[in-house]
Every structure is written in structure tokens, then in C-alpha cells.
């Protein structure tokens, strides 16, 4: 099959011009599992599709954007600088749940990117307004 799409029902539709609100929800610590790293790969690809992309960080996912990550001792790549590069891909909507920060003794100053901190209720509202929510 071709690279473009093999989807029978997708094939004859022209998706160009459709802009959907995509939210990537990051709930897991950056190391320990590969979810965070592979999530970031999807986010970067999504930038090529001219969609309305946002990222949400909650639960242990807030650790993904904490400053001062040193991963040498666990022999893993420190991919946290990539979050700083998102701006260059026009991905500027980064939302962080306040309760998740509070529970972990973190504040906005501990984060390596500019984010919008919001309550759990505001986050829920934000999620309900999305077209596509992909949770990692």
C-alpha cells in the first residue's frame, strides 16, 4: 500500500483544510517507561499537520518538564530540552494541572518551559473542548 494512506474509507476524503483541536495528555514520569519519550515523537509529527495542538501535563507527567534533569546515571537520553523546542514548531499551548504540582511540592518556577497552570476543573473543561485527546 502507499505511504499516504491505505484506509479505504479515508482514501477519497480530502482532509486538507480541516483543523482539529488535538490535546496530548502526559500523565507519566519521563523515565521508568517509554510513554513520555514516544509521546513527544507524536507531538512533533502532529506539528506537520497544521492542527491546533496543545499538551497537558498532570499526575507524574509534570515531572517531564521539571528543570535540571540529569540522566547520565541511568544511561538514558535526557530528552527534556525538546520541550523547549516545541515553540519552534508553533506548539505553544502547554497546560499543567495545579493539583499535580502541589501534590509533588512543585511550582511553576520548577518548570523548564512557559506553561499555563490551571485547576483540575479548568483542565477538565479544556479537555472537553478538544476534538482529539490522546493520553499517554
Amino acid at each position, binding site marked *: 500500500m502507499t505511504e499516504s*494512506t491505505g*484506509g479505504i474509507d*479515508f482514501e477519497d476524503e480530502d482532509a486538507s483544510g480541516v483543523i482539529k483541536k488535538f490535546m496530548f495528555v502526559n500523565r507519566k514520569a519521563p523515565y521508568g517507561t517509554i510513554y513520555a519519550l*514516544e509521546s513527544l515523537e*507524536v507531538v512533533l*509529527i502532529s506539528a506537520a499537520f497544521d*492542527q491546533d495542538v496543545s499538551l497537558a501535563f498532570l499526575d507524574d507527567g509534570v515531572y517531564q518538564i521539571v528543570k535540571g534533569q540529569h540522566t547520565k546515571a541511568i544511561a538514558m537520553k535526557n530528552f527534556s530540552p525538546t520541550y523547549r523546542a516545541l515553540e519552534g514548531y508553533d506548539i505553544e499551548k502547554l497546560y499543567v494541572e495545579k493539583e499535580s504540582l502541589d501534590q509533588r511540592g512543585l511550582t511553576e518556577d520548577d518548570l523548564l518551559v512557559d506553561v499555563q497552570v490551571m485547576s483540575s476543573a479548568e483542565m477538565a473543561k479544556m479537555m472537553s473542548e478538544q476534538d*482529539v485527546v*490522546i493520553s*499517554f
Partner: protein
Amino acid sequence: MKFAIMVNEGVYQHQSTDTAYQFVKAAFEKGHEVPRVFFYHDGVYNANSLTEPPQDDRNIVTRWAKLAQEHNIDMVVCVAAALRRGIKEENLAEGFRISGLGQLVEAGIQADRLVVFGD
């Protein structure tokens, strides 16, 4: 309704792959469409042709292939996630194809709902 499905967990280890399969099957039974299933993270193991479960257990890999053939589902395995885990063309199960993450984003744009199965 047109559903796109994302499967993020491996076979046998985790139920989400079973749940995804049952969901797709039920969707067709109710008259919905599922044009594409996208496999990511450990979900790429769903496409490993070397999988050999005990005879009295379900075969998750061939079960997908059968469903895909019946309903013409495009089953796509992420290339980067697959290579990391040793899934290549040479051990890619029937009914699957390897492609890029763009196929996931495209499915999200074109489907009415994208449903994610995983932790």
C-alpha cells in the same frame, strides 16, 4: 460513526489489546466503521508474526488479521516504535503494514472519534 483506534500495549501482558479488539468488533456489529487501527508503544507487538500462544489460548495476532480482512481495516504499525522492539517487514504479521506516525494524526483528523486503548 467513523472510529479510529490506537492500541498502545503489548499482547497477553495487558488487556487493552483485547479490549480494543472487542471494541472494534462490536463497532462493526453496530454498523459503525473503523477504517484504521494504529499500533504504537508496545502495541506494535500485536503485529509480530513470531507470536505463538499456547493452543488453548486466543491468538491475538491472527485474530486481528482476520478481523481486518473481513472489514477491510487498515492496520498500521508505527515504524519507529516497531524497529525499537524488533518488529520488521520480515516478521510482520499478515494484515498489518508499517508506516509513520503521520498515519495516526491523519486518522485523528479524518475520524469522528479517535479511541485510545492503553495505560
